[in-house]
């Protein structure tokens, strides 16, 4: 047993109980349906802004782009523009591939030892696949939920729903039934991907060693969100019209708790989402913004062409060569040392000297 994930699991189970008991037994629908979600959004936006402003005020002391390809060099050596960007355009391209396709995860390797002594590196693609599946299914799920916040539902969301429910999966048992409403692939992929991301933290020893409670908690929480959502859609049905009444009232700042009442599973789902939002700015989930601000990715590798000034540099009193020469020019000339700038304040002396030299 690993304390780190047990603590996270217990935390998420406690949150589930709080929301379920609070909304079902204690009748705190106003608290769980209106007050906590608003507070969560305030915490999310406020925390996000504070965090970003803090980061924006931070210095970038050194040019530290990480590179994975040939630097721009002599004209007959082909540079790798994306993996070793030298221009802003190439950096934008590199960032695009990083943010949209998780390019650096694609290069993930795993080290191993064969025959007792030989070190080898193996391409390990599953983290990349798992991450892509997780992030994009989560994005799809979030966008799909816009149907609860916009009335009438825009055609783009309807199109997304149609694509998501492309596979007409049908499954009828006594306990649950899938088919009507249509089966959404993104929900299943999200649940599968978050399960994979959790299992790799349990089964790969090195990853388990570096995993903390703060790594497990968001995974359990997102698992809870996806699971309660799927449960609500296919097993414990809720009155979706009443749900939209609540969400529309919420989004237009005329909050209402529908008279008909909504099942406790909905309030659990909503409470999990509120916790995730409020937790977001104070956690590792801020990699959402952090990926844009990574100096190892968003800087051009052009330090030989452009000097990177460290903002930490304090003014150092320096004595430049020009000042040195100004101070000692006459003595240098007397000593026969070469000078950059010939003195012109005493033209007669120079001409006299030159005449002398000419005569000699």
């Amino acid at each position: 047993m690993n304390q780190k994930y047990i603590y996270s699991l217990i935390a998420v189970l406690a949150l589930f109980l709080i929301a379920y008991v609070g909304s079902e037994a204690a009748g705190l629908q106003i608290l769980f349906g209106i007050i906590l979600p608003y507070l969560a959004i305030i915490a999310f936006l406020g925390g996000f802004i504070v965090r970003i402003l803090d980061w924006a005020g931070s210095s970038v002391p050194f040019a530290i782009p990480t590179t994975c390809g040939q630097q721009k060099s002599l004209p007959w050596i082909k540079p790798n523009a994306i993996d070793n960007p030298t221009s802003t355009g190439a950096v934008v391209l590199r960032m695009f591939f990083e943010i949209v396709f998780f390019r650096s995860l694609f290069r993930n390797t795993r080290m191993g030892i064969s025959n007792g002594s030989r070190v080898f590196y193996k391409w390990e693609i599953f983290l990349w696949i798992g991450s892509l599946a997780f992030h994009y299914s989560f994005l799809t799920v979030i966008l799909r939920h816009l149907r609860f916040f916009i009335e009438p539902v825009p055609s783009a969301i309807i199109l997304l729903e149609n694509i998501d429910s492309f596979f007409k999966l049908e499954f009828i048992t006594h306990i649950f039934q899938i088919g009507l409403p249509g089966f959404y692939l993104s929900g299943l992929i999200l649940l599968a991907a978050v399960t994979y991301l959790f299992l790799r933290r349990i089964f790969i020893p090195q990853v388990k060693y570096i995993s903390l409670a703060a790594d497990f908690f968001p995974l359990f929480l997102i698992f809870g969100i996806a699971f309660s959502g799927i449960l609500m859609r296919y097993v414990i049905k809720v009155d979706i019209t009443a749900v939209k009444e609540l969400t529309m009232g919420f989004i237009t700042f005329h909050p209402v708790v529908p008279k008909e009442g909504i099942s406790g599973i909905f309030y659990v789902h909503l409470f999990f989402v509120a916790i995730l939002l409020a937790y977001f700015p104070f956690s590792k989930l801020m990699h959402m913004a952090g990926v844009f601000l990574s100096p190892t990715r968003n800087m051009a590798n052009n330090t030989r062409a452009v000097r990177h000034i460290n903002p930490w540099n304090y003014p150092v009193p320096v004595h430049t060569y020009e000042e040195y020469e100004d101070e000692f020019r006459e003595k240098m000339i007397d000593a026969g040392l070469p000078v950059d700038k010939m003195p012109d304040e005493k033209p007669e002396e120079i001409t006299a000297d030159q005449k002398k030299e000419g005569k000699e």
Partner: protein
Amino acid sequence: MNNKNKIITGLIIFIGIITFPFWYNMGKAAPGIEPELSAKARAAKKCVRSASYMKAEHMQLLDAWRESVVRKGERIYVNEEGKQFNMSLSNTCLDCHSNKAQFCDRCHDYASARPYCWDCHIDNPKEKE
């Protein structure tokens, strides 16, 4: 190196996107919707099951009905009170709820549900009356 302006521009864009539903709905009222019962449905007082069950689970009931009728050939549904019904969307459900536009569509459009029931059952003669 100072990227403060770029970062703050990005932050403003992000906040704009994330709060999109709030400012999109700014100033709009969000009245709930109420499906309109036809005279016959109102007179019947009770549906096949309770109203709260039907609100949340009618699609599941219809799916089970279709399974039963099409694949098992069983057409009789007995509800909790022992009352018997013919399992038929066109002849049982739409007999009372003959006003699709005011009853079915109102909630379906609101919740962005597009059931494929109507792919076949749209030529319901009761609607035309």
